[in-house]
C-alpha cells in the first residue's frame, strides 16, 4: 500500500486544491506516534466532487481536518489556488478559511444547542461581514430557503429540529460565507435512508447553484459513487487507488478496493470481485507494516510487498494504483 508518488496529480489549469505528500502524525505516550496520514497526494479540480472512501482508521477524516488546518500538518503541502495552507498562519490563514468550509457527521452536536439557529448560520457573516457585524437578515433567509428550512424557524434551537433538518442548517452555515470548497465529513452517516437521499440531493443542488467544489468523505461505497466524479481509496494512512468513479467501480485493480467492493451486501453487477476478501485485523497505525501497508492482509502478497513500498502507477487514462501486483481486469468488462 503506498500512496507515495505524484503520478495522480494532474497538470491542469483548473486545479483548485492540490495535496502533496501530506503527512499527519499524532503523538501518543512516550516517543510513539500514530501515523494517521503518511505522504498522500491528490488534487481536486474546480467544480469537481472528490470522494474519499475507506474504513475507520484509514485517515480519511484526518485528511479533511488537516486541509482546513483543524489538526497540525507534520509535512507536505496543501495548495489552494497559489497559497500553501500548510505553511501560512495567523491572519493569512484566517483570511483564506472562509473559502474552505466544512460540514460534519453528527448534525445535532455540530450546532451550538444554546443559540438560535439563525444566529448559528449568521456567525460567520457577523465576523466577516463587510461592515463589522452588519449583515442582512435577507441573506440568512435566503440561505435557509435554499437549504429547505422555513425562515420563521430561525428563532428555534438545534434540539427542536430533526437530524436531517440540523444537517440542512449545518449546510446553510457552511454556505454563508460563499465558500469555494465544501468539505463534507460523513455528512449522511448518522441519517436514516429516506433523509440521506434528501441531503445528498441538496448537496448536488447547492453545488450547482453556488459553483462549489466538493470533498466528500464516507465509508459507504454506494453513497460515494453517487456523489463523486473521482474517488480516492485509503487504507491505513495511505492511498491505494485513485480513479474516476466508473473506472474504480468497474475496473478495480487494487486488492483492497476489490475486497471493499466484495463486502457490500449487494455487490455491483458490473464487476466480478468474488476474489476479493481480507482476513485478519487492521494493523496498528502506531507501528504500521513495512513495505506495502496492506501486505499483512493481502491475498497476492509476495516478498517485494513486505520490503518495498509500491508507488502510484497509472493504469489508464485517469486511474492510478499503488500495488506491486495489481489485479488484471479483462478489457471491455
Amino acid at each position, binding site marked *: 500500500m503506498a500512496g507515495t508518488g505524484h503520478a495522480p496529480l494532474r497538470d491542469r489549469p483548473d486545479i483548485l486544491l492540490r495535496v502533496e505528500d501530506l503527512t499527519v502524525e499524532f503523538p501518543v505516550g512516550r516517543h510513539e506516534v500514530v501515523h494517521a496520514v503518511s505522504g498522500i497526494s491528490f488534487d481536486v479540480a474546480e467544480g469537481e466532487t472528490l470522494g474519499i472512501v475507506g474504513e475507520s482508521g484509514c485517515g480519511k477524516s484526518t485528511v479533511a481536518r488537516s486541509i482546513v488546518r483543524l489538526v497540525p500538518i507534520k509535512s507536505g503541502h496543501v495548495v489552494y489556488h497559489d497559497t500553501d495552507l500548510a505553511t501560512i498562519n495567523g491572519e493569512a490563514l484566517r483570511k483564506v478559511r472562509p473559502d474552505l468550509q466544512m460540514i460534519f457527521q453528527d448534525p445535532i452536536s455540530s450546532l451550538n444547542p444554546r443559540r438560535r439557529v439563525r444566529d448559528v448560520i449568521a456567525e460567520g457573516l457577523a465576523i466577516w461581514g463587510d461592515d463589522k457585524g452588519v449583515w442582512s437578515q435577507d441573506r440568512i433567509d435566503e440561505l435557509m430557503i435554499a437549504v429547505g428550512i422555513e425562515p420563521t424557524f430561525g428563532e428555534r434551537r438545534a434540539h427542536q429540529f430533526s437530524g436531517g433538518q440540523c444537517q440542512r442548517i449545518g449546510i446553510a452555515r457552511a454556505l454563508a460565507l460563499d465558500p469555494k470548497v465544501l468539505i463534507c465529513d460523513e455528512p449522511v452517516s448518522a441519517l436514516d435512508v429516506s433523509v440521506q437521499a434528501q441531503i*445528498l440531493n441538496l448537496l448536488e443542488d447547492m453545488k450547482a447553484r453556488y459553483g462549489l467544489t466538493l470533498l466528500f468523505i464516507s465509508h459507504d461505497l454506494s*453513497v460515494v459513487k*453517487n456523489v463523486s466524479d473521482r474517488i480516492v481509496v485509503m487504507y491505513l494512512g495511505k492511498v491505494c487507488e485513485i480513479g474516476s468513479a*466508473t473506472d474504480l467501480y468497474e475496473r478495480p485493480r487494487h486488492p483492497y478496493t476489490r475486497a471493499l467492493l466484495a463486502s457490500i451486501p*449487494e455487490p455491483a453487477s458490473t464487476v466480478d470481485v468474488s476474489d476479493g476478501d481480507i482476513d485478519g485485523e487492521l494493523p496498528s497505525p502506531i507501528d504500521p507494516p513495512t513495505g506495502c501497508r496492506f501486505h499483512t492482509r493481502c491475498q497476492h502478497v509476495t516478498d517485494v510487498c513486505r520490503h518495498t513500498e509500491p508507488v502510484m502507477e497509472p493504469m489508464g487514462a485517469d486511474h492510478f494504483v499503488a500495488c506491486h501486483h495489481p489485479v488484471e481486469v479483462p478489457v471491455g468488462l
Partner: protein
Amino acid sequence: MADTQLSVRNLQVRFPTTHGVVEALNGVTFDLEKGQMLGIVGESGSGKSVTAKTLMNLLPRTAEVEGEVTFEGEDVRAVAKERRKHFWGVKMTMVFQDPMTSLNPVKRCGEQIAETLRYHLGHDKKRALAEAVDLLDQVGVPEPAKRVRQYPHELSGGLRQRVVIAMALACEPSLLIADEPTTAVDVTVQKHILDLLDRLRRERGMSMILITHDLGVARGRCDDVSVMYAGRIVERAATETLFDDSRHPYTEALLRTIPHIDQPSHTRLEPIPGRPPELIDPPVQCAYAPRCRHTQPDCLESIPAFVGVRGVHEFACHHPVNTQWARTEQADT
C-alpha cells in the same frame, strides 16, 4: 408447513411520558419458523428494537404491553417467576448493536462468557472457562486462549462483536435476536460477522431475527422480511418477493431512495418527502399517508388492514402499488 417456533400476535407497547403516551408498537403480528432467518427492516423509531426488547422482556417497567407472544408453545408473558431467570438468555438470546457497551469494560472477555455458563448451566469455574475458549474458537476468534484473558478495550470492534455472539451462543439457544449487529462495524467486518451468523444458524438449526436498517443486508441474508413503519408491520413476504414485487408504497419508496452501486454517478435520488410521524396520539389514518405519493381520501380515514395472500405476501395499504392495473398504466406512460 414447518414448525412455528415463535408466534407474535397483535403486540402493542405504549410508553407513558410527560408529553403523552408514545404508542411504540401498534399491533405487530408475525410468525417465525424453526431454522428461519427473519429480517425486520425500518428506519429509526419504526419499532424494530422495541419489538426485540419486548420479546426479550427488556422493556422498562413503565411500558404497557398487550398482545400474545408464544415461544415453543409457551406463553412468554406468563412464564412463572422462578423460571424467568433461566428463560431469557438460554433458549432465546440477543446480540446488541454496540459491542463496546454490551460488554463489561472491567472484566476479561473469558470471564464474561464463563459467567453465562456458570449462572445458567451451573458449570464450575474451570469447565466454564474451558468452554469459553471453545466458544471463541467456534465464532472465529483467532488465538482464543489468549483472548479470554484480554479486556474488551484490547479487542477490535469486529472481535468484540464475536465475543458478544459467543456469549449469546453459550447456552445453545434455539432463537437468536440480532439487533443491528453490524451497524457499528466496517463493511469488511460486517461481511465476516454476517457470514458467521449465517454459518452458526445452519450448523445449529437456530432461528434468527435480524433487525437492520440496511435493506441490502436484509436482502442478502434473510428468508423472510418484514418492513416496519411507525410501530406497525406494513409489508411482509419472502425476501425475493418483497424486493422484486413490493406492494406497499413505503417499501417501494425505501428501495428507490437508496443510492445503488450499479447506478452511474450523480444519479438523482428519489427521497421520501417529510419525516416519520410522531407516535404520541397518532391520528386514525394510514401512518404513511402524509408522505405517500398515492394518498387517496380514504387513506386519511382509516388504518389499512393486511391484504394480499395470507402467510405469503401481505401488505397494509388501501391502494397497493404494482398491481396488474398499475403496471399497465406505467407501461403506457
